[in-house]
């Protein structure tokens, strides 16, 4: 059945309603729920593999270690063990926390990340919705996460959390603008905000070297914007060198300090979903979405390519985490405002000129 979704071109929700014969409005809503469940679970499974297992393995490889290898093949069953461990821990509610905001904060983070996936084309018809303003939507949704961080920092009644929350706010503005302005340069090329069309615009071959067609991914057309976006994205998902709001050695994990058990899991999950959402955005607007890099490989379903690409971005973030020091908050703001912002506008103007001259 999964393969059917990957092959067909009918939108996901319609396809589901066709299979189950649900044609009424209620049926469509039900199908939409099933579709959302499907997409949500794909991402949750990704995060579940990434969090307890892949991250450990990757970090260990960078640090010359072995990491989890006792439970199951390659230690994969640690995922189950960790799930049981994390959920069965006691939820400690510190004195003086500001409820209910303290309880809401952990929900916002995974919620915002999951919602973003609703408009991401994952290959075939695996896309819940394809609104005209898809790119704006996905950025708007992803930014909600900072709200959760600030609420958590503020309501925890802990000075370390408070500092972490404040750092998150200060950082947020410094990287969001360059992020979106850089994305806007892609929109200039594609001439649309609809994500499926941005992907489609990257399908033509850019040039052919020795019989191998290089696709016209925006990462190849405008590598400068790609790198800029990659850096700003590291700040968006809060990984080294920009893991400033958490900064374990300074702020004892910042806004997460007071959270335990399920609430902690939600934060943890939200962070990993966020890395994947960042990866999905990069994949969609710079790496040709779910398409194969060379046409001779296109017999492999697009969904596989999509997963491969977002996992590559995940690997990149872990690589950075393992080898790059953390910046200080003032240095980060300086880089954000004086460096990234200026560069992103330069990039936008040059792209506009380029598009104006060529187009």
């Amino acid at each position, binding site marked *: 059945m999964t393969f059917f979704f990957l092959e067909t071109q009918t939108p996901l929700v319609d396809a589901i309603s066709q299979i189950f014969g649900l044609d009424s409005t209620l049926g469509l809503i039900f199908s939409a729920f099933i579709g959302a469940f499907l997409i949500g679970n794909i991402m949750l499974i990704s995060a579940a593999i990434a969090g307890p297992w892949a991250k450990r393995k990757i*970090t260990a490889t*960078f*640090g*010359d*270690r072995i990491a989890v290898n006792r439970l199951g093949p390659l230690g994969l069953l640690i995922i189950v063990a960790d799930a049981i461990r994390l959920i069965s821990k006691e939820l400690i509610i510190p004195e003086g926390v500001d409820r209910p905001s303290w309880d809401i904060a952990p929900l916002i983070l995974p919620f915002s990340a999951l919602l973003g996936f609703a408009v991401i084309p994952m290959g075939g018809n695996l896309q819940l919705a394809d609104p005209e303003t898809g790119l704006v939507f996905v950025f708007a949704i992803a930014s909600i996460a900072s709200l959760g961080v600030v609420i958590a920092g503020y309501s925890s009644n802990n*000075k*370390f959390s408070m*500092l972490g929350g404040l*750092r998150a706010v200060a950082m947020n503005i410094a990287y969001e603008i360059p992020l979106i302005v850089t994305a806007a340069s892609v929109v200039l090329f594609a001439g649309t905000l609809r994500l499926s069309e941005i992907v489609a615009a990257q399908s033509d071959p850019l040039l052919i070297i020795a019989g191998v067609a290089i696709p016209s991914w925006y990462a190849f057309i405008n590598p400068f914007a790609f790198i800029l976006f990659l850096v700003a994205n590291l700040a968006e998902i809060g990984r*080294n*060198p920009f*893991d400033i709001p*958490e*900064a*374990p*050695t*300074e*702020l*004892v994990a910042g806004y997460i300090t007071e959270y335990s058990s399920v609430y902690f899991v939600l934060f943890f999950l939200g962070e990993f979903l966020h890395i994947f959402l960042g990866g999905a955005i990069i994949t969609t607007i710079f790496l040709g979405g779910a398409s194969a890099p060379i046409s001779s490989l296109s017999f492999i379903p697009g969904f596989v390519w999509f997963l491969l690409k977002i996992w590559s971005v995940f690997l990149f973030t872990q690589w950075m*985490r*393992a*080898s*790059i*020091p*953390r*910046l*200080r*908050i*003032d*240095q980060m703001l300086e880089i954000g405002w004086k460096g990234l912002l200026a560069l992103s506008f330069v990039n936008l103007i040059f792209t506009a000129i380029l598009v104006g001259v060529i187009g």
Partner: protein
Amino acid sequence: MSAKPSLTKTKIIGVSRDGTLDYDKLEKLLNGRVIYRENHINAPAFVIRPDAVQDTLTLLRDKAGFDHLSCVTAQEYEDRFESIYHLRKYSKPKHELGIVVPSPRDNPWNQSAEPVFKTANWHEREAFDLVGIHYEGHPDLRRILLPDTWQGHPLGLDYDQNKPQIIALKEHENPLADLENDTMFINIGPHHPATHGVLHLKTVLDGEHVLSVDPDIGYLHRCEEQMAQGLNYRYQIMPYPDRWDYASAGLLNEWAYARAAEDLASLEVPEYAQIIRTMGAELCRICAHFLAVGTFALDVYGDFTAIFMYAMRDREIVQSILEDLTGQRMMFNYFRLGGVVWDLPEPRAEFLDKIRTFTDGVPDGIKEYNNLMTSNEIFQLRCIGIGILSPDVARQYGVTGPVARASGIDYDLRRDDPYGYYEHLNWDVITNNGCDVYSRFLVRLGEVEQSAKIIDQCVSLLESWPEEDRILQSNVPRTIKPPLDAEIYRAVEAAKGELGVYIRSDGTQKPARFKIRSPCFSNLSTLSEMAQGGLVPDLIASLGSLDIVLGEVDR
């Protein structure tokens, strides 16, 4: 009285033509303040009145060049209390002088040395805490190692060890209240990922800027000094130094005790044992420096990432060598008074080869660290110009070891006050004029390379050492009873700096007073100088660059 050392290049008084100290001239300089002269084994000591401390120390600092107050020892006799200020010169550590300040038993007091030497601040607090002498004019005479509510002074003669200390939880709470302005009071530690142990920093922040830091130490205090006073020289004290700086610098600590006790009891150490000692000590130094590099990376990078694990991986090789040599990974207990406990493990050639392989790989390893860290631009952003400690301030605080050498102070006891086999080997003292976190890091990396060089030469010597000359211990009597009232202060260059031991003998086989001069203790007292005005991450980086081990700070 100025707190700053005078920088004028006046002629230094008290040095005779051949470069040795002329104590008569020094006594003349002090102009009648010296009541009489005592003879300690390391150097003569002047006995002065309790109200003449500041004048005497100022004169000695400004006119005679004694710019290093390395240690303050306090002790109680049957008839009096006594503070001893052990003075040295940074430029010539062999020039030593003790200043002994007796005070009456019923009212133990003397003038504080804090206005002359900043380092006296903490040392006198410790003396007050453990022995109970009051220092007049001390700006902040609080307990330092024990909690504020402690009853009595544990190293005093009339202290009842069996009396339980009852401390109400309320009185012992960490302060949480904010000050009455826009600043934020925050407790960094005692449980915090970057404090390298149980260190508590009472920090006042303005936004993210550090206004003041007050390190609160003593969480790991075991009163090692008192323990040593209950044990005999010959067999029982040696295992304890391993527990001061337990981050694998054990042999360096053991040497500090061994050096003091051997000189006190006039024991010889065979040359062969000296070479093994030197090699073992340098292996320990490499271990300790790798740990310092790794944990500093942890502080700046933020996670148990590649660099930390690389440092641990390299340190592990040295640890296994030390394990082969001593049979232990952490608490070596390998030195004995008059030598070492056993010879190199068999097969000897294989063991020496193992060390060779390691030392040969060190330069490449250092290159890897340089590629990963020192040449990384973000790392430089985080480290260059951070945690500045100017040489003058460093001298004021009695800073030693890599921290002092990174402030341009060329002070290394291995070269300047030679012991062991160092003077026969070819190696360099690494210094750096950067005065910042970055240069401390570079100095440590440089020292690892130099240590490898020393080890290499030791291995060559050991390889060719004739089998019949392998004497491990000199002839040491079964019970050691140093002469009555003999006093000695001796220091070695440990991984963190000048690790000194003061011992006073009362003619029995146990020391009457055993005082440890911990380099981390003095180095840590500079933290507030370094961190003030910086951001919280700078505070963490500065702390990491000091490379403290709380077991040695608190003893």
